[in-house]
C-alpha cells in the first residue's frame, strides 16, 4: 500500500473518530441525561438544546477540517476511467 493511501486512511480514521465522538456524546444515555437540564440557560434557551446545537456545530467544524485536509492532500480530484465495455 502506498504512503498516500496510508495517510488517506489515517486521516479518514481520525475524522470519523472525531465526528463519531460528537454523535456519541449527543446520544449516549448517561451523558445525554447529564446534559438534559434547563439551567444554565443561554438567551432563554435550555442547556439541553444549546448542548445539542453546539455539538452539531462542532461536528460541522470537523467536517470542514476534514474537507480542507483532503483538499490539501489532493484527495478530491480523482481521475476515473470510464469502463467502455458496458
Amino acid at each position, binding site marked *: 500500500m502506498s504512503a498516500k*493511501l496510508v495517510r488517506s486512511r489515517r486521516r479518514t480514521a481520525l475524522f470519523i473518530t472525531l*465526528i*463519531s465522538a460528537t454523535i456519541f456524546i449527543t446520544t449516549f444515555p448517561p451523558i*445525554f441525561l447529564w446534559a438534559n437540564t434547563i439551567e444554565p440557560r443561554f438567551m432563554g434557551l435550555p442547556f439541553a438544546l444549546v448542548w445539542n446545537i453546539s455539538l452539531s456545530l462542532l*461536528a*460541522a467544524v470537523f467536517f470542514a477540517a476534514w474537507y480542507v485536509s483532503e483538499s490539501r492532500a489532493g484527495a478530491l480530484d480523482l481521475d476515473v476511467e470510464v469502463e467502455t465495455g458496458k
Partner: protein
Amino acid sequence: MIPVISLFAFLALILFINRRQLGVSTMADYATANHSIGVLGITFGFLATWYVGAGYTVFSGFAVSFGMIGMYVIPYGIVTLLVMYLVAEKTFIWCKKYQLRTQSELLGLRYRSDFLRVLTGFAGVGLSVPWLLMEWYTIGYVFNYATAGFISPLLGMIIGIFVVVFYVAMGGMRSVVTANIVQGLYMMVVGSGVLIYVLYSELGGLTAAMERLFYEAPKAMTFPGPGWDVSPNYWTAIIITSGLGGFMWPWVYNKLFAADSIRTIKQSVLFAPVLGILSFALLFILSMALHPLPFAQKNPEEALFWVHAQAGVWPLALFAVLVMAASLGTVSGILNAMSTAISGDIAQVINRKISEKTALLIARWSVVVMSIGALVGAYLKEGQLVFLALMTYQGMIVLSPVVLLGLYWRRANKIGAIAGFLLGMMVSFGLTLSEPAFIQTYGWTPGVYGFLTTLIIMLIAGYMRPVESHVETLWSDITKAKEG
C-alpha cells in the same frame, strides 16, 4: 388573495426556470443529469429533498406537543451527513467508471446480484410511497389553508401534481435539481426570515418566548417533554435509526450520481450541516415556543400555519410558499428516483432487451401513473399517512448495513446481503406491527433490532465464505483512482 397569488407565482417560477431543462432525451440524462451538477445543486438538492413539507406540520407538531425532543432532527442530520461523506468516494468512483444511475444498480454491481438490485429497487419504491402520499396531502393542505378553504385539498393536490409531473417527467434529474436550488434558497433565506419575523412579532422574541415556556411549561424544555414517559434509549434510537436510514432513501442517495466530482459532494457536506442546523433549530425553537398557547396545544400540527396567519396575510403567504417549496423538493426527488428505479432497476433487469429510448418512456409514464395513484391514496388514506411514513424509517435503516458494509468491507457478500436484508426487514416490521412490551420499556425502536439482525447475518455470512473475485477488481478501481 395574496397567499394564493404567491403560491401560483412560486409554481410559475419553478416552471419558468426549468424551461430550458425539459428536453432530456436519454435515460442517463434523466436519471443523473449526465453527472454534471455542481456544488450549489447538490447542496440544495440534498437539503430540499431531505426537508419534507410535513416538517412544518407533522414534525413541528411533535415539537409543539413535546418540546425539546423535536430537536433530535439536528444530531440525526449529522449522522446522515457522516454517512454521505463516507459513501461519497466509492459511490462516485464506481458510478463514473461503470456509468451507474441508481443506488440499487450500485448494490447490484458490488454484490454482483440482479436479485439484490431488483429487491432493493422494489423496497426503495415501496418504502417511498407513504412519503409521496404524505407530501401530496401537504400540498393540498397548503392550498386549502392559504385560501381559507376556497381551494379544496383535492384541487390543491391536482394543481401541485400537474406542475411537478410536468417538470420531472420532461426534465428528469436536471429539472429536479434546478427546482431544488430555487426551493432550497427560498427555504433558507425567505423561510428563515419569516420564521424569525413571526418569533418576534407574535411571541416577543427569542428570550421572551423562552421565558414564557420556562414559567408555563418547563417540562417542554427537556427530554422527553410534558405528559410522556419514555426511556432515554429512545433518544439514542431515533437519532441513530433516522440518521443511518436518512441517507439510504434512493431519492436522497441518488443525488450523488448527479454530482460532477467528489469535490462537489464533499463541499456540499460543508454547507449542508450549517444551513440545516440553523434552519431546523429556528423551526423547532419556534414550534417549542408555541407550546404554552392553548390553540397550539389543541392543534399542534396546525400551529405554525395558525401563528403565521395571526401575524398577517404576508407572513401567511410566505410561510405557505415555504411549506410548498419543501413539499415540491421532496416530491420531485421521490418521483425521479422511483421512476428511475422502475425503469432501470426493475424493467431493464427483467427484460434486458428494453432500449434506452423505451426505458426513458417507461420512466416518464411511471411519473404520471405514480402521481395519479398517489393522489388517490393521499385523498383516501390521509389519516394513516404519518404513521405509515414514520414506519418506513424502520425499514430503511435495514438497508444501511448492506450499503456501508458493501462499500467498506470486502468480505460482505451477496448471500449475507440478501438474507440479512430480508430477515432484517421481517424483524423490523414484525416488531413494529406486533409492538411487544419491551420496545416501549427499553426504548429502542424496532429498526434498531432489524439493523442488528442484518448486520449480524452479514458478518457471519462474510466470515463463512472467501472474498469474491469481482470484489478485488472493484477495490483495485478505488486504489487506482486514489493513487492517480
